[in-house]
């Protein structure tokens, strides 16, 4: 049997999980992972904790020191791919070197996306997606106190929390709503209270017009609302797939690299997974970006299996997020924002206790959940969605007692499969 060479670009969740899956199936093939960054594999998820001081840079690594040796995988860092030549199955590195592959996984992830604003460039302002970003930010903050964050998505808020915990003053510049993807208006109003009472200053401004730097301060003017100044401006207005190096390769890119159910691109033998890939979603098969660790891990595993010659189909991603903020817990999954006649929605809130509960059903299946300070096991809720567990008889009970009833439904489904998970 000939040994295949699997080349993986990117050492994040998707790349590692693909390598693990290939090795699980095949002990002989050569696996090589190259990373453009000069760090051992880490996850951007932990970077905000670097700001808060909860972890140190030395312990950023996502895997143990002997991980690659044990897995028999070659890992090369600081090796950037600049071109791909599918015709000859070669990649070209920045240093001019070429390397041949039998199959290729594109898992290079995403990078901060910058809105086009006059005066906004990297010399004045700061993005936040890599270790270098967080290093640079910590340097900038050295003798300053006052940070403005442009954006109100997950990263923006996690960074804000990290900074608050370190004692910085934080202004969050919000265009419309905080965590717009994960919270509806009712949940948003509760979350706003939680953030402001913990010291995050929420400033609603539309249309940032210009950014200027003078006297060690950043000044911002807006189309609508008072101007603002801050010592440091951090841009957290989302990420985009890192696809520049693909130009001229013929690989189809939309918002991300478009992949089929096997996580394969339009070119045979080239796969993509993680933040870089645009894949079908679980419920409708609609194409979209899901830049969360879970989707990266699952997509990487599916790609790895197909690369190793065991065909598996990707079920699709489910948007999900669990979020711990100042002692509060927010969990959103699936089609939590769905509206319309196809969906049955149960919702209720208790503003004083900062509780919010919303469940979305379709055809007697749970398809969405938005829970604020409601104790549940997030994974069990996702289980009910993924396994399409029929909850027709007990929607109300699930809404009343989400934790007990979801656990019961999961245990019952496992039991019905014959092999009790506990046995």
């Amino acid at each position: 049997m000939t040994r295949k060479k699997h080349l993986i670009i990117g050492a994040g969740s998707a790349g590692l999980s693909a390598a693990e899956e290939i090795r699980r199936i095949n002990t002989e093939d050569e696996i090589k992972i190259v990373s453009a960054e000069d760090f051992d594999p880490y996850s951007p998820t932990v970077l905000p904790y670097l700001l808060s001081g909860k972890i140190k840079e030395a312990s950023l690594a996502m895997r143990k020191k002997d991980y690659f040796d044990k897995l028999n995988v070659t890992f090369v860092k600081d090796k950037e791919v600049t071109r791909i030549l599918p015709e000859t199955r070669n990649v070209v590195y920045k240093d001019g070197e070429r390397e041949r592959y039998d199959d290729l996984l594109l898992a290079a992830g995403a990078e901060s996306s910058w809105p086009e604003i006059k005066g906004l460039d990297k010399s004045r302002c700061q993005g936040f997606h890599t270790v270098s970003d967080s290093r640079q930010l910590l340097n900038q903050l050295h003798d300053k106190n006052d940070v403005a964050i442009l954006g109100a998505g997950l990263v923006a808020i996690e960074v804000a929390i990290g900074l608050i915990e370190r004692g910085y003053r934080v202004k969050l510049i919000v265009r419309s709503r905080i965590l717009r993807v994960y919270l509806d208006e009712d949940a948003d109003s509760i979350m706003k209270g939680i953030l402001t009472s913990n010291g995050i200053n929420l400033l609603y401004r539309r249309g940032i017009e210009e950014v200027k730097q003078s006297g060690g301060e950043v000044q911002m003017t807006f189309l609508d609302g008072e101007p603002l100044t801050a010592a440091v401006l951090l841009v957290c207005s989302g990420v985009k797939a890192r696809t520049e190096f693909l130009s001229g390769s013929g690989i189809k890119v939309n918002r991300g690299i478009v992949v089929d159910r096997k996580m394969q691109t339009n070119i045979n033998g080239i796969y993509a997974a993680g933040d870089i890939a645009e894949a079908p979603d679980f419920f409708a098969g609609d194409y979209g970006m899901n830049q969360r660790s879970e989707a990266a891990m699952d997509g990487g595993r599916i790609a790895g299996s197909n690369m190793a010659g065991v065909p598996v189909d990707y079920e699709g991603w489910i948007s999900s997020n669990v979020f711990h903020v100042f002692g509060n817990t927010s969990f959103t999954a699936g089609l939590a924002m769905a509206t319309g006649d196809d969906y049955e929605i149960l919702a209720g809130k208790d503003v004083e206790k900062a509780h919010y509960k919303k469940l979305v059903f379709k055809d007697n299946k749970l398809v969405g959940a938005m829970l604020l300070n409601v104790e549940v096991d997030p994974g069990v809720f996702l289980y009910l969605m993924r396994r399409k567990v029929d909850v027709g008889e007990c929607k109300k009970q699930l809404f009343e007692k989400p934790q007990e009833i979801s656990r019961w439904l999961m245990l019952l489904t496992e039991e019905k499969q014959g092999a009790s998970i506990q046995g």
Partner: protein
Amino acid sequence: MPNAYNTIKAEFNACPPECRLCEEACAKEKGHKIINQARIKPVHARAVKFHGTMSCVQCGQPRCQQICPAGAIEKNTEDGIVRIDEVQCVGCGLCTVACPYGGVYFDNESQKSFKCDQCNGDPKCVQACPYQVLSYIDNKPVLSFLKEDMLAPGVTACRGCPSELYLRLTLRILGKNTILFSTPGCACGWMHGVYPNAATRLARVHCLFDNVAATMTGSSLYYRSIGKDVNIVSFCGDGSTVDIGFQALSGAAERNEKIIYIVYDNEGYMNTGDQRSGATPYLARTTTTPVGIGRRGKEQGSKYVPLLMLFHGISYVATANIAYPLDFVRKLTKAMHTKDGMSYLHLYSPCPTGWGAPEDSSIAICKLAVETNHFPLWEADHGRVEINHEVANPKSLKEYIELMDKYKHITPEEMDELQKRVNSRYEMIRNLAQRNEPCRV
């Protein structure tokens, strides 16, 4: 070879309402004042009358470990326990999203995730459970005496057929020192292999239906005469056991020959296309007991040979079922060590092809067969009968027959009759088990 790990087993829906003893013991052991921080969760869903427990199942490929962005979760390959390094954990909570089985929890106070570590081999929850809902199963002894696999990979049995599991496990317990006897039947299609390949790596004797027990008798005598202790083992279907070969079997049993007679019972002649056998249950549809005008499936009940073997006075009789592999392994071991006479093992082996059941349902059917008392697990060691898996609240037979097509035609009245027969057979066995005296003939 993969390791076998110890496991905490929880019976399904078997807790007393509102009991929290396991949770309290866990919280105490882990030094938590708040009971919520226990690593095992009683699940009392009153609205649906469910009372059970839930905890980490220590997965083989833990998703929590794979997703952890801080490298804080690791499955120890020695003891199989998945542990969280509290120092490394950043408290992002991704593991609670990744785990589908509710095995990882988040502590708002310390901002860390936590989970069960089986108290490093001495689980306090199990000790605290007086109702035997929780048990700690030591898997090491099982694997340590599993012998070399004598069955080829890639056997050609029908999809979903458990007979391969039965034979593979049988040979891994009995080992090389075994001669295998078979008769025509569906399993001989794969257990002999397809020319020019052999499917087993030991001596096999293929017999006729009606003389397998006699041939085994002769072989057993021969080996004893030359002073060799060899396992003389059959792997035959129910047709050759309860019908065609019964005369020879009955003779060998009466003489209490030193043989191990194993039958895999799929309740019919499946090799030739699902004809009824003496083991086919009452009302079951087969090609020779069809359902149509005036015909309602099999008109007679099934011949229950395990009890007939007991009444022949042989040394060891047992029923076994692959959904309870530990019980099966124990019984095989006992048969192997029964040196003073015959052992008879009756294995329940669903046939998805013939019964009209989904190919992935065999184990579920096996389990329900026990939980409904359709196929009770019992053994008789020198006449002393013991029920091995007493079911506290037997499930309705309806649940069982719904899993397959062969009972699809059954009316509620017929269902009641079937249930009565099942109950009656179980009562009989239970009465025997309650005797103080062993059954002698």
